[in-house]
């Protein structure tokens, strides 16, 4: 039966209209027309501005009659619009009073904060018309899709192996061999590769619409244009980046991204989005009017008492996340991505900002973070915090998570890096990090799964660069090498940068393997940086946010050149997946309900059962008891790992294991392939079951299993 409210009630300059429905916000296709709805707590008037697609001037401006306003929501149905060929924006009238935090300008065309598709940057890097009065254009989309039974995978957190990647950088290089480089479709073409590698989750750097031309400038080194390549600067929160879709020029980015997600799911790979709710692309007082500052500045941003923008994000402004209206928008946004796109989880950039109140002060129980933790639609989504911000809050281990939030464990990265390069005084910290950082997360319900372990991520050196450079080399960014982190805890192994020296290169390969081994035998959730599995370099640049070129793009030729590293990473991933004892999520408990005589984790050193915890120690070994896999519900092999970060070889006495079991070598980073890693069932038996020689700066992993 047809609804009785789907007929026009009035006309305006040839347009058929009627009062709209305030919920949902945004532009929604309904039978016969489009329902427009936008809120502003402080606007005094609003006009809908309609453009034909890509036309410089609007073809209609329709004021919202006062009768169409409900509370602070302007809402209207316009009938008979060709939804595919129009773009819409708003004029908002109201006070311009900086003291009061208002910046209304009724002449600016403003994008809908709830726009589901945004035009204006349809093809990556295609220079826009800078005189255009409406740079980022809201469009209308059907949000249906033929999912064919797909749903988010809900892979248990403890089983995840995350692969952090950049949509464009992943396949943009000519060596990628894909049909549509640098796009969602390109990722889809590389699914067989991801499966071969063995990861079961990709975490993609921001895919919400952003402006790659924001702050673009020529490079002082190459002269080529520096771009906003990483995209940590949202134009719109609900729309996928058009320039990341091969079909963006046709406005089909929504379907292309959904088809990619569907295919990833079909292949057992989850998708986590890196979301940026800490600021917008509108920048500071001198920034452009895109949407929020013109729609309702005082609501959307945290302002100083005299009306300036607080800058806790380091990017000019700070989204007012704990204003109830903005909180609602963030919740709407994540629910939309989870339900309409089947997204499996979110990683929140500078998440500590989400816990600041409307004056910028950190809160004990931030309502936004709590709402997300308990939201029914997000109930099975992974929520991962980057638990710090640019305003000085550092909450690794203290981020309020309600048992639902995991954290990027920055301390894991720092401690492992230091230990890898041979620093001393880290044994205690290493013990914590390997167990999933109980010192940080013991009181969290999700235990070790709270800790997302990583040694490298997009922000900083790649793994190859971590072992090839002592210092950052960011000259190409045009800031005299001032930008980027100075505390890299990196070691170049004896020469700064690329070298032909055989011994140095051998040591570098070994250090990469050491890092990967430790990461994949640690409790918690491992995260790899895309490209590290093939020794990708950024030539020492540790902050490649603006480098849309070969500095950032993954060079697929490395897969052949560094086959040794690729095979090793692939082997370690397979090893982790086949041993559930590595993935226990509860922390060590001093109990033995299985009555097997072994603790769940035991610590060793040069001598069995006697780890050297002293300040000068560079060796540590540990053993996971196979009978305690999956909290004692499963039976696995015993796994013993010896880490020797000393520059001398050491003999490690092996702990005795039950008689029917024997020690086999899985990993020895000190030897050349193919003996550096052995695949399941082919592990190398060792003659001497009482001790192993662990080479200088090397890792050995053994399993104790029944004799073949």
């Amino acid at each position: 039966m047809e609804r009785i409210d789907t007929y026009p009630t009035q006309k305006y300059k040839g347009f058929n209209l009627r009062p709209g429905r305030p919920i949902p916000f945004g532009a929604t296709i309904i039978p016969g027309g489009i329902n427009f709805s936008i809120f502003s707590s402080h606007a005094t008037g609003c006009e809908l501005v309609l453009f034909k697609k890509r036309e410089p001037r609007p073809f209609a401006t329709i004021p919202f009659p006062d009768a169409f306003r409900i509370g602070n929501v302007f809402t209207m149905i316009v009938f008979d619009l060709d939804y595919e060929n129009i773009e819409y924006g708003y004029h908002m009238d109201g006070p311009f009073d900086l003291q009061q935090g208002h910046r209304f300008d009724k002449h600016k065309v403003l994008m809908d904060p709830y726009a589901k598709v945004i035009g204006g940057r349809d093809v990556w890097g295609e220079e826009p018309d800078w005189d255009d009065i409406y740079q980022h254009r809201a469009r209308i989309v059907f949000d249906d899709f033929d999912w064919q039974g797909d749903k988010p995978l809900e892979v248990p957190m403890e089983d995840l192996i995350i692969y952090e990647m950049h949509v464009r950088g992943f396949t943009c290089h000519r060596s990628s061999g894909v049909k549509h480089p640098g796009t969602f479709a390109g990722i889809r073409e590389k699914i067989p590769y991801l499966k071969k590698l063995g990861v079961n989750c990709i975490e993609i750097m921001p895919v919400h619409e952003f402006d790659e031309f924001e702050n673009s400038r020529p490079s002082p080194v190459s002269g080529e244009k520096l771009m906003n390549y990483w995209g940590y600067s949202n134009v719109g929160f609900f729309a996928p980046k058009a320039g990341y879709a091969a079909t963006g020029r046709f406005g089909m980015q929504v379907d292309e991204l959904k088809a990619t997600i569907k295919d990833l799911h079909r292949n057992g790979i989850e998708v986590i989005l890196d979301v940026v709710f800490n600021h917008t692309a509108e920048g500071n007082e001198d920034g452009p009017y895109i949407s929020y500052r013109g729609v309702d500045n005082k609501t959307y941003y945290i302002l100083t008492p005299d009306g300036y923008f607080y800058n806790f994000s380091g990017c000019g402004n700070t989204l007012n996340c704990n204003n109830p209206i903005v909180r609602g928008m963030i919740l709407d946004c994540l629910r939309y991505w989870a339900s309409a796109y089947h997204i499996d989880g979110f990683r929140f950039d500078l998440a500590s900002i989400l816990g600041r109140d409307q004056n910028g002060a950190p809160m004990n129980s931030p309502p936004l973070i709590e709402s997300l933790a308990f939201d029914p639609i997000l109930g099975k989504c992974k929520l991962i915090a980057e638990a710090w911000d640019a305003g000085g809050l550092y909450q690794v281990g203290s981020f309020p998570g309600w048992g639902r939030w995991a954290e990027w464990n920055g301390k894991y990265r720092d401690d492992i890096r230091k230990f890898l390069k041979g620093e001393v005084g880290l044994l205690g910290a290493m013990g914590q990090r390997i167990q999933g950082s109980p010192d940080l997360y013991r009181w969290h319900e999700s235990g070790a799964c709270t800790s997302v372990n990583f040694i490298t991520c997009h922000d900083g050196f790649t793994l190859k660069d971590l072992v090839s450079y002592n210092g950052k080399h960011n000259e190409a960014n045009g800031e005299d090498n001032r930008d980027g982190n100075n505390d890299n805890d990196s070691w170049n192994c004896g020469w700064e940068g690329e070298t032909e020296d055989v011994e140095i290169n051998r040591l570098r390969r070994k250090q990469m393997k050491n890092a990967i081994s430790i990461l994949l035998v640690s409790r918690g959730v491992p995260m790899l940086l895309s490209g590290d599995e093939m020794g990708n370099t950024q030539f020492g640049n540790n902050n490649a946010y603006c480098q849309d070129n070969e500095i950032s793009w993954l060079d697929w030729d490395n897969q052949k050149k560094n086959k040794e590293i690729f095979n090793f990473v692939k082997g370690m991933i397979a090893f982790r997946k086949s041993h559930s004892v590595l993935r226990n999520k509860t922390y060590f408990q001093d109990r033995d309900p299985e009555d097997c005589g072994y603790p769940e984790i035991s610590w060793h050193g040069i001598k069995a059962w006697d780890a050297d915890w002293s300040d000068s120690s560079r060796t540590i070994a540990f053993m996971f008891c196979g009978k305690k896999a999956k909290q004692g519900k499963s039976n696995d092999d015993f796994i013993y790992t010896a880490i020797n970060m000393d520059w001398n070889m050491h003999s490690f006495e092996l702990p005795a294991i039950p008689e029917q079991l024997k020690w086999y070598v899985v990993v020895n980073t000190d030897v050349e392939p193919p003996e550096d890693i052995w695949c399941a069932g082919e592990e190398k038996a060792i003659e001497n079951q009482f001790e192993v020689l662990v080479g200088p700066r090397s890792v050995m992993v053994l399993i104790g299993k029944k004799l073949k």
Partner: protein
Amino acid sequence: MELKVDKQNNVTVIEIAGDLDGASAETAQNEISKHIISDCSLVFNMEKCTFISSAGLRVLLMSAKHIKRENGKGALSGLSSDIKDVMEMTGFDHIFNNYDSLSKAIDAIKKEK
């Protein structure tokens, strides 16, 4: 967009010429629906189709679902490589089999059980 309907060898052939987009989607959908009857056999001849937008792809998808409901059979013929590519990238390539030529599409649909 222009729609021509023809009967060949007991198969209904619907030729879609020009752009199938938001402006023409509703008309196309209504017209196509008329030919989806119980146990029908339909081939969409796309040789002269120059562009399919998101709304156009939804017309094909809705038609496919309608045909299935009526226990009928459907196929596409003569898609340009560009359109085929777009359908693949946007996940609409599974809805019908596509054949190089109309005669191949008709043969295939007749053999289909």
